[in-house]
């Protein structure tokens, strides 16, 4: 190599190109292997956790088998264990929270990504012929940034604080509405019990707020990643802002939004403390939003402290089921995401 380059001695114009050194070459390889190693360590860690729980749960699996999943009573004295109500409660509360949280989260993401606030301020300004001084023209933008950070801050609030807030604020707040719905629309299954305090609805509302930052932050990034030229194309064809959002932006960002929702669902399934405080801890399978219920995570949190040696195995079985559900949801999510991201060759 260097032989072909005209020999120049010294001076700023001398070529400084050279072969990569031994260390440069091999640190590259080492770095590659290190990333491999850590990636596989994570996989091993998951497998290890599953194994430990599985081993501890083994006696309970042998004793109770399928009956554990289909059983509906939890009686420590009679040694009767079944977690169907908890599975039901886990899925019901998570799905409910997901519907509420995803709607609000995506709405917030659209609000922020489309700069609704600033455009509103600016169009009002334009209406009154206000000139925008550089000093405060950035104010709406800054306000939007603050709003975004505040929403992300929701994720930093401890679960137990959410639980307390739910007990002292959400339940009293929604109780009159729930009572009204129950007495007037009680014939609809989802309203057919009264809210006696903790229950499915307050738990789901709080859970929805807890997963909102996940949904909105990831959806916002997905929406901001939509190439600006697609917006231009849509507006250029004479689409309104809403037509552009619904027909172009959201579908183009749908992969990211869907990923956000799956991630949030995984969080909701495993959320423990707030639910243990708000869901009522009653082994009930009911469609009613106002009925107390229970979830797998809350069951574990409530029963571990006083569990005898035999009960620990049973609880480990329940933990294994929870783990199975979350892994399954995440895998289905990943699979659908992958399907969605494939180039749509030959599909309608």
């Amino acid at each position, binding site marked *: 190599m260097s032989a072909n380059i005209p020999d120049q001695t010294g001076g700023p114009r001398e070529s400084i190109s050279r072969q990569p050194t031994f260390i440069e070459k091999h640190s590259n390889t080492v770095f590659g292997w290190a990333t491999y190693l850590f990636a596989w360590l994570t996989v091993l860690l998951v497998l290890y956790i599953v194994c430990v729980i599985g081993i501890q749960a083994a006696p309970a699996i042998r004793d109770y088998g399928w009956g554990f999943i289909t059983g509906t009573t939890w009686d420590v004295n009679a040694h009767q264990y079944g977690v169907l109500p908890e599975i039901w409660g886990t899925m019901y509360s998570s799905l409910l929270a997901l519907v509420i949280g995803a709607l609000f989260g995506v709405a917030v993401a659209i609000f922020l990504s489309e700069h609704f606030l*600033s*455009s509103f301020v*600016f169009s009002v300004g334009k209406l009154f012929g206000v000139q*925008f001084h*550089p000093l405060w*023209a950035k104010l709406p933008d800054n306000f939007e940034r603050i709003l975004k950070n505040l929403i992300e801050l929701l994720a930093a609030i401890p679960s137990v604080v959410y639980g307390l807030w739910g007990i002292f604020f959400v339940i009293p707040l929604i109780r009159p509405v729930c009572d009204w719905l129950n007495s007037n629309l009680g014939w609809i299954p989802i309203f057919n019990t009264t809210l006696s305090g903790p229950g499915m609805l307050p738990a789901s509302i709080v859970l929805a707020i807890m997963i909102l930052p996940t949904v909105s932050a990831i959806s916002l990034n997905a929406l901001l990643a939509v*190439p600006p*030229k*697609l*917006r*231009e*194309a*849509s*507006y*250029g*064809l*004479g*689409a*309104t802002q809403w*037509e552009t959002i619904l*027909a*172009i932006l959201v*579908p*183009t960002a749908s992969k990211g939004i869907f990923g956000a929702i799956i991630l949030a669902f995984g969080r909701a399934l495993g959320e423990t403390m707030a639910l243990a405080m708000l869901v009522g801890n009653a082994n009930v399978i009911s469609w009613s939003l106002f009925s107390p219920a229970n979830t797998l995570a809350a069951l574990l949190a409530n029963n571990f402290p006083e569990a005898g040696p035999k009960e620990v195995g049973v609880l480990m079985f329940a933990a294994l089921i929870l783990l199975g559900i979350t892994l399954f949801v995440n895998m289905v999510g990943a699979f659908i995401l992958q399907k969605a991201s494939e*180039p*749509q*060759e*030959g*599909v*309608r």
Partner: protein
Amino acid sequence: MAQTAKELSSAPKAGNGNRNTNEVVIDCNISELYYGKFKAVRDTRIPIERNKITAFIGPSGCGKSTVLRCLNRMNDLVRGFRFEGHVHFQGKDIYHHSVDPVAVRRYIGMVFQQPNPFAMTIYRNVAFGLKLNGYEGNREERVEQALRDAALWDEVKDKLHTSALSLSGGQQQRLCIARAIATRPEVLLMDEPCSALDPIATRRIEELMLELKDSYTIAIVTHNLQQAQRAADKTGFLYVDTTQGGRTGYLVEYGVTKQVFEDPKEKHTQDYIHGRFS
């Protein structure tokens, strides 16, 4: 709003036989145009004539795109955009407060520098405008016609329902043209439509423009002088004025393409056309 829209389209359609040769479809008169505090364009008056191709040429940054985007109110999307003057489309001021910018863009279509098909099938891309306008008739027929007009039909007729992103750059740009003309707008604005394309795709688009000008009025921005010479009937040369401290673009010369290129009146135009500056 509906009334406005009706007024926007009230003039007789082209191609009905009575072709009025020098009829001005868009009368653009910009006295001052600002992006925030920045004065981007001044003193630019360009009449866009029916069934002609009008080209905007000039060094980059002189405001060609800005002027073009003024003609269908795309600049309204830019925050801080402000403009003094008027743009009349078929005699109606499109910047009048009663006019909806969305309606303007439905009558004055646009093709952009970068091909920008949506991440959906070829068919749905072309049908997008039909859907926006609530077209109830035979959509398949319209889509086919638009693709034929854009000289793309033969290449895509067997894969209408595959993703538009699987097409090549030149095909994507013709798809964008098809998408823009599917609703048969009055005017087609093209902002350097060939700058991302290879020479063969460029020639195809040029041929296409010459075919399209029978039924549409076309305004095109190009940095390719040969392209302007080959395709345009009228040419406007914009140049950027740095004497007053800023970088404000303005129209130096406008006229029949042949005259602008062979016998330019202004010194700046001569210099530019003979490549004495860029």
